[in-house]
C-alpha cells in the first residue's frame, strides 16, 4: 500500500501543469480566476487546444481520438486542469453523450459525431429533465411518434444547461406510452436548428443565464439519430450515470476555492489584523481542508478499485463521492463569500459578463456571491443528495 503517486503519474501531472501554464490563453485564465462568465468561443478555443494536444477526450479509446487513459491518469489530468484553473473537457459532451455513442452508436453515428464532439464542432446539451420529471426522471412525457423515417417530437425539456450555446441536444423521449415507464423511453440526438425548437432562458439567482427551457413542437428527428434500439434509452442513460459521477466530483475546483480563500484572507483586515490570522477563521478552514483530504483519498481508493475492472460500469460507491464532494463545493464557496464579506454585496452582472472592465471594489469579490448562489445546484443537479442517499441505502447497505 502506498498512497503516493508513482514517478510516471507525477510526470503526467507535471506535463499537464506545464501545458496549462503555456497553452491556456491568459484571457480565459483571468476570467476563471475572477469568476467572470465565459463566452462560447472560450470553451471552444480551449477544447480545440486540448484536442490538438490529444487531450480532448482522454478517457475515450484511442480509436476515437482518446488516450485510453486509466482512471488514475484521468483523475490526475482533471485535478491539474482544475487547479490551473483551466476548463475541463465539457461534461455533457465528451463525458456523457460521447461515451454513449461509443458504446451503443452505429459505425456511421460514431464517424459523424465523435470527432465533432471532441473538438466542439457539435456542442450537445442534455435534455433529460422536464417540468414534471426531475428526480423521477423515468416519468418523462416528451413524446416521439414514428412517422416514416422520422420521429415527431413534442414536449418540454427544462433546466437545460447551455442549451442557448448548444448545437444539439441528447434527449430522452417517450416512444412507447403503454410500456412500464422505464421501458418506453428512447435516446435521440436532436439538432437544435430543426424547426419547432424554441429555447427560452431561465435566469437563476444573481441574474445568471446558464439554464433554459427547451420547447419541442412537432420537431422532426431522423430515425438515424436514435442511439441504439427503440425503447431502450433508459438503459443507455443509466449506463453513464454511475460512471460519470467520479468525473463530476471535480474536487480540484473546491480545493482551488480554498486555496484562493486563504490567499485573499491575507488581504482582508479584521480589527487591524489580516483575516488569515484569525483563529476562528483558521479553524473553520482547517476543518474543511481535513474533509477535503479525506474525500481525496476516498476518491483515489474508488478509482484504484475501478482500475481493476476497466471499462464503464455502475458503481454505487460513486454516490458517496457525489454526496460528499458536492457538499464540500458548497462549503468552499461559502467560505469565499465570507472572506469577501460586505465587499460581496454590490450586484455587478456587467462586470461578470465582461461588459465593463471596472468593478465596484476589488474584482475578486464581484463573483463571490453569485458563485455561492450558483453552487447550491451541486446538491440538486445530476441526482440530488437525497437521491444519492437512497441509492447508497439500497445498493450498498441493502436497506
Amino acid at each position, binding site marked *: *500500500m502506498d498512497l503516493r503517486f508513482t514517478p510516471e503519474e507525477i510526470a503526467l501531472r507535471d506535463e499537464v501543469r506545464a501545458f496549462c501554464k503555456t497553452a491556456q490563453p491568459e484571457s480565459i485564465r483571468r476570467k476563471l480566476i475572477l469568476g467572470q462568465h465565459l463566452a462560447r468561443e472560450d470553451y471552444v478555443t480551449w477544447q480545440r487546444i486540448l484536442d490538438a494536444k490529444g487531450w480532448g477526450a482522454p478517457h475515450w479509446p484511442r480509436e476515437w481520438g482518446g488516450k485510453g487513459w486509466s482512471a488514475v491518469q484521468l483523475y490526475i489530468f482533471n485535478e491539474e486542469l482544475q487547479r490551473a484553473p483551466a476548463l475541463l473537457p465539457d461534461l455533457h459532451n465528451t463525458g456523457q453523450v460521447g461515451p454513449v455513442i461509443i458504446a451503443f452508436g452505429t459505425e456511421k453515428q460514431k464517424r459523424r459525431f465523435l470527432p465533432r464532439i471532441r473538438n466542439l464542432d457539435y456542442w450537445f446539451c442534455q435534455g433529460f429533465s422536464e417540468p414534471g420529471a426531475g428526480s423521477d426522471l423515468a416519468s418523462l412525457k416528451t413524446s416521439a411518434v414514428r412517422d416514416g423515417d422520422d420521429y415527431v417530437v413534442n414536449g418540454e425539456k427544462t433546466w437545460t444547461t447551455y442549451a442557448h450555446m448548444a448545437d444539439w441536444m441528447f434527449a430522452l423521449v417517450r416512444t412507447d406510452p403503454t410500456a412500464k415507464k422505464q421501458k418506453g423511453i428512447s435516446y435521440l440526438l436532436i439538432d437544435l436548428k430543426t424547426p419547432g425548437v424554441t429555447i427560452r432562458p431561465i435566469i437563476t439567482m444573481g441574474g445568471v443565464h446558464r439554464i433554459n427551457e427547451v420547447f419541442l413542437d412537432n420537431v422532426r428527428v431522423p430515425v438515424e439519430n436514435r442511439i441504439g434500439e427503440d425503447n431502450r434509452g433508459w438503459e443507455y442513460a443509466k449506463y453513464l450515470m454511475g460512471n460519470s459521477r467520479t468525473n463530476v466530483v471535480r474536487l480540484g475546483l473546491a480545493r482551488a476555492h480554498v486555496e484562493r480563500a*486563504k490567499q485573499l484572507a491575507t488581504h482582508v483586515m479584521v480589527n487591524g489584523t489580516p483575516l488569515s490570522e484569525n483563529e476562528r477563521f483558521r479553524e473553520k*478552514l482547517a476543518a474543511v*481542508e481535513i474533509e477535503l483530504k479525506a474525500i481525496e483519498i476516498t476518491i483515489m*481508493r474508488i478509482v484504484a478499485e475501478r482500475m481493476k475492472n476497466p471499462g464503464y460500469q455502475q458503481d454505487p460507491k460513486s454516490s458517496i463521492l457525489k454526496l460528499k464532494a458536492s457538499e464540500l463545493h458548497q462549503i468552499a464557496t461559502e467560505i469565499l463569500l465570507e472572506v469577501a464579506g460586505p465587499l460581496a454585496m454590490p450586484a455587478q452582472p456587467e462586470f461578470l459578463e465582461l461588459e465593463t472592465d471596472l468593478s465596484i471594489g476589488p474584482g475578486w469579490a464581484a463573483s463571490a456571491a453569485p458563485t455561492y448562489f450558483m453552487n447550491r445546484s451541486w446538491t440538486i443537479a445530476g441526482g440530488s443528495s437525497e437521491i444519492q442517499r437512497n441509492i447508497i*441505502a439500497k445498493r450498498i447497505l441493502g436497506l
Partner: protein
Amino acid sequence: MDFDLSEEQRLLKESIDRLMRDRYGFEQRKVYARQPDGWSRELWRQYADLGLLGLPFDPQYGGFGGGPVETMILMEAFGKALVLDPYFATVILAGGCIRIAGSEAQKTALLPKIAEGKLLGAFAHSERDSRYDLADVQTTARKDGAGWVLDGEKTVVIHGDCADKLIVSARVSGGPRDEDGIGLFVVDGKAAGVSRKGYPTQDSLRAADIALKGVKIAAGDVLGEPGKAYAHIERVAQSAIASLCAEAVGGMQEMLDITVEYLKTRQQFGVPIGSFQALQHRAVDMLVATEQARSMAMFAAMMIDEKDPVERSKAISACKVHIGKSARYVGQQSIQLHGAIGMTQEYKVGHYFIRSTMIEMLFGDTDHHLAALAKAGGLIAPASAA
C-alpha cells in the same frame, strides 16, 4: 498509488481476523474482562507466538519488522473485536518509546522481551493538569550521582497497573510547559518509591494513577539524552494516534454493520424500521463517515514515516480530528437508531460507542488537534497571488 495489501500483509490480516473471530467473540470478551488483570494472559501468549507483540520492531530485536500498515491492520481488527489487552500500552507506547528513543543496549535488552510476551509496559506521561499538552510535565528528575531520582504523580496511565516497566517522563530542567528539559526514564513497576492505584476505565480497560517518591534510576535507564525527549514523545504520540485511528475505524465499521443489521430486523408499524427513509439516510451518513475515516486512517499510517516534522504533525492532527468527529457521529447515531436496546450494557453497540468516546480523549481531542492544525496553517497552502 496503490491501495492493495502485499501478500504478507494479506496473510497477516487473515490470521489476525481468524484469531479474533475464534477467540474474541463478545461473550468470550466478557470472560476475559472478569479475569484478575481484566484481560487474558493466555491470549497474550498466543499474540507472542504469532509475532504480534513484536509487530513494529526490527527483526534484530526479535520483531516482525512491520511498518505502519501492519499496525493499522492489527489495530483495526482489535477495534472490531474491542480488545481489552495491554497491546496499545505495551507495544505501541512503551515499545514505541524504546524503539524511538532507546540506545542499542536498551533496545536489545527490552524489545525482545516485549515481543516474547515476557514484559508488559506502560507510558506514564500524563499528569493531573497536563490535559493534552505533551510538554506539560511537572514530575521532576533530579541528578543523583551517575543516576537520577524521580518525584511526582502520573495519572490515567493506560494499563499502568500491570506493567512490568513504566516509561516515565520527568522534567530535568526548565519551566513546567517547556518542550526543552524533559527526560524519559525506564522504571521498574515494583521499584521502591513507586505506588500504583489501578482502576477500570469507562471502556472496561484498565489504568492506574502512579505516585513516584524518590525513585532511584540508574544512568543506563535513561532513554536518549535527558532533557531532549520531547521530540521522541511527540513521535510516540503520533504513532499512537495513527494506531488509535485504525482501532476507531474497526469500531466504526462494526457499529455501522450492527446498526444496519438491526434496521433490517427490528419491526415497528408492521415493517422493518430500515424501510423508513429518515433512518436509511442516517445510516448512509454513518457509512460515509466511516469510509472517510478509513481514508484518514490510511493517511495517518502513510504520514507516520514522513520526514518533514511539520507536515507529519499537521497530517496526524488532521487524522485525529477527522476520526474524533466521525467516530462521535457514528457512535451517537448507532445508539439512536437502536432505541432503548442500544442503551443497555447487555448489548454490544454501546461498548463500541464507549470505546470510541475514550479514543477521542487519548492524545488530544478534536478541538485540541483542530486548533493545532489551524495554528500550523492547515493542510492546503494559499494560492499564489494573482
